[in-house]
């Protein structure tokens, strides 16, 4: 018998728990030569802002041991372009499309959510709160419970779509932030965004990245990400989408056992364009081999 892989993220039904991580999968078509993206439970697309953005100076990417640092700087064509050019494509897809949004102010987040609310083809919003709060001296929204909750409330009020808040790991107590955004009306959480890092070019004696600092992702961060999911799971009731260094099904299962209802494949797609599908197939195989009827039985099972 085929095990049941279906999960729910708020009111969004996913045929299986696998999605892609925002910023690592473009808008979808980039990867269609390599896998049938419609087999995934959802795809999560590149971070979108109110206005188009040019992004950061290059180099924007540097490899680190088992990881990468990126400072793309949210280069994107803006929400209006997305609605006009990509939404019609999303609508045709036989899978959910999660749109990731980012803003400089609480109002921008609310505007973005309002604009995307009635757009056909969009299944949910993922809210990137690792962006600097321009009005608060550039501290990230996601770095304290109060501003994280403010963003959540504003987005919540502006949309009827499921609202997924994406947490930053660069905090003292990620569970406290999770709890605050749950209270503020989030339907789900994405855990984790990248870790703040940097690299220095010892020949030039300067930071490697054009933007000095960047976000660390890939297998290197997996232990931190699993820990974050574990801590958040102990504190909130809403579902978690786990991510951070998932390269294969075994990695994904660590997140599910730690408490993730779904998982996102990010950096792995760069190394293996078929990674997301292989993660899905591997999870299914694990369930079959272990006689587990329903993926939900595994969610958080390592908490004993």
């Amino acid at each position: 018998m085929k095990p049941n892989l279906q999960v729910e993220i708020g009111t969004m039904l996913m045929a299986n728990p696998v999605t892609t991580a925002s910023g690592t999968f473009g808008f979808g078509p980039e990867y269609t030569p390599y896998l049938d993206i419609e087999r995934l439970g959802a795809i999560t697309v590149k971070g979108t802002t109110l206005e188009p953005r040019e992004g950061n100076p290059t180099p924007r990417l540097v490899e680190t041991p088992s990881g990468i640092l990126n400072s793309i700087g949210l280069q994107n064509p803006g929400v209006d372009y997305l609605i006009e050019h990509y939404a019609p494509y999303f609508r045709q897809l036989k899978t959910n499309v999660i749109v990731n949004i980012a803003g400089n102010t609480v109002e921008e987040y609310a505007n973005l959510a309002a604009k995307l609310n009635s757009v056909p083809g969009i299944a949910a919003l993922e809210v990137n709160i690792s962006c600097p709060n321009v009005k608060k001296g550039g501290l990230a929204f996601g770095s304290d419970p109060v501003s994280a909750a403010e963003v959540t409330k504003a987005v919540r009020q502006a949309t009827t779509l499921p609202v997924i808040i994406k947490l930053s790991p660069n905090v003292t107590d990620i569970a406290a932030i999770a709890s605050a955004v749950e209270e503020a009306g989030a339907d789900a959480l994405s855990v984790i965004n990248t870790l703040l890092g940097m690299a220095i070019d010892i020949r030039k004696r300067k930071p490697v990245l054009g933007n000095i600092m960047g976000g660390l992702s890939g297998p290197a961060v997996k232990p931190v990400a699993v820990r974050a999911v574990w801590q958040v799971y102990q504190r909130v009731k809403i579902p978690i989408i786990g991510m951070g260094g998932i390269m294969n099904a075994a990695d994904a299962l660590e997140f599910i056992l730690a408490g993730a209802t779904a998982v996102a494949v990010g950096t792995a797609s760069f190394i293996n364009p078929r990674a997301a599908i292989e993660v899905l197939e591997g999870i299914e195989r694990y369930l079959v081999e272990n006689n587990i009827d329903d993926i939900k039985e595994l969610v958080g099972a390592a908490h004993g």
Partner: protein
Amino acid sequence: MSKVLDAKVLAVYQVAPETYYMELEAPEIARLAVPGQFVHVRCSDAQDPLLRRPLSIHMVSRPKGVLALLFRVIGQGTELLAKRQPGDTVNLLGPLGKGFTLPLPGSRVAVVAGGIGAAPLVFLVQELANMKCQITVYLGAKDKKSILCDGQFTQMDAEVVIATDDGSMGFKGNVIDLMERHMDWRKTAMTYVCGPKPMMQRVAALLAAADVPGEVSLEEHMGCGVGACLSCAVKIAHHGQITNKRACADGPVFPSWQVVWD
């Protein structure tokens, strides 16, 4: 269309200091590839080094289903790649990117190669020769030992003029100096350039000053290689507007006069 597959190593040997030639069995990629495209190569099965490495398609033999690479050992990835033995497999993603714009058959063209920049230009000259173009190759390197592919170019009936920094072969000086003497490239339909960035920038300036069309093949650090991650942004000026293009998907080949060098 592009593929991801395990290719069998057919041959690998050193051809110059720190420079390796590798032949791979990859019929699907060989069939689809055009000059100027590249493959994204997995150099390790472990998670360090993590990323693929972009390497130009150096030559293809479609009948044999063979694809060749020519690469310099720079760091961890290329070092591991150079250690592969015949019979081993190498995971390839490709062909990727947009290749060179081919001229009308029989055209007069110039090809400018600096160091390892010769790699993609052999495949290009293969095609140009098939199109019966009249080809001059300006080939530069540090010294005689580091001159790459001169024999291959000559065999394909290209005229080859050589410059070495130390004068150990051909003209003593760099490719720019060489071009400044040899003015034939001014009369070409197209000049194709690949080499170190400063050299390409200077050649682009030379071409612009002479109002000659050219194409350069740019290198940027890459994540995905397929246009999804926006790591590989290059600034391209078009109709007075500067926009970010993706070296992997919109390039690596760009018109020489559109590149905004920094």
